[in-house]
C-alpha cells in the first residue's frame, strides 16, 4: 500500500518539479525536497501520532469522558515510567582535578639529555 502511495505522490509531484527545473529553478526543487526530507526526518516519530490526534479531533463532537479517562491513565503510566527510568540514569563521574601533573610527569622540554656541549672546541 505504501509503495502505491509513494508512486502516486511521485506522479503528482513530477510535473510540478519538471516545470521548475525547466525554468531554471532546479536548485529550488532540490531545496524544497531537502526541506521536506529534513521535516520528515525530524518529525517522523511524532508526525504520525499528531496526525492521528488531529484527525480524531476533526471527527470529535465534544470530549468523550471515557476516552479522556483512558488518555489520562496513559499519561499517568508514561509519567511513572519516565521517572522510574530517570532513576536508573547513572550519576556523572566526578570531574578530573584541574591541578598540574604531580612529580614524575613529563619533564619540561630542553632539560633532557645534556649531551653535546662537550663537543665544542
Amino acid at each position, binding site marked *: 500500500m505504501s509503495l502505491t502511495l509513494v508512486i502516486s*505522490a511521485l506522479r503528482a509531484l513530477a510535473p510540478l518539479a519538471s516545470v521548475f527545473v525547466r525554468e531554471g529553478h532546479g536548485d529550488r526543487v532540490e531545496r524544497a525536497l531537502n526541506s521536506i526530507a529534513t521535516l520528515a*526526518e525530524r518529525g517522523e516519530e511524532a508526525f504520525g501520532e499528531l496526525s492521528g490526534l488531529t484527525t480524531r479531533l476533526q471527527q*470529535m463532537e465534544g470530549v468523550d469522558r471515557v476516552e479522556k479517562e483512558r488518555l489520562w491513565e496513559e499519561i499517568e503510566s508514561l509519567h511513572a515510567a519516565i521517572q522510574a527510568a*530517570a532513576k536508573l540514569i547513572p550519576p556523572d563521574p566526578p570531574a578530573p582535578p584541574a591541578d598540574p601533573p604531580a612529580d614524575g610527569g613529563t619533564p619540561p622540554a630542553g632539560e633532557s639529555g645534556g649531551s653535546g656541549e662537550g663537543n665544542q672546541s
Partner: protein
Amino acid sequence: MTHSRPMLLGVLAMMVCLVLPGCASNPFSQAKGADEVAFAALGSYQIFQKQALKVVQDQSLPNDLRRAVAAADAAAFPVIKALDGALTTFLDVQAQVDAGTSTKAKLAIAVANLQDWTAKAQAAVKALRDSVRKKKPTARATPLEPLIYRSV
C-alpha cells in the same frame, strides 16, 4: 543511498498530508470548543511523553540530556494533571447544565478555568517537546518545520 531514506520519508509525509483530511499535524487546528482544545493539549502531551520515555531509556544518549527530558516531564506533569481535573469539572458542570441542575454562570467559570489551564499546559507541552527534540542535531533549518509543530 544515504539520502534515499529521508527523501522517501519526506514523500511519505507529504502523502500523509495529501491523503488525510485536515492534516498538518496540528491537533489544535481541529479542536472546536474549550474542551476539545484541552483534549488536544492532553493528547499532544501524551505523544511527546512517548518520545520522552524513549530518550530517557536510551543509554546511548548523554545522561544530562536524559535527565533534562525527565525533568521536563516532572515539571509539566502537575500542570497536565490540573488540566485533566479542570476538564473533568467542565464535563461534570456541562452535564449538570444539560440536566438542568446547574447554571450557565457556573459553566462559564468552568470554561474560564479550563482555558487558563490549557494555556499553561500548552507551554508545558512545548517545553517537553523542545527537550525531546534536543537529541537530534539541528544541522539544517527548514521553512516547512512550523507546519508540523506550529501549535505546540
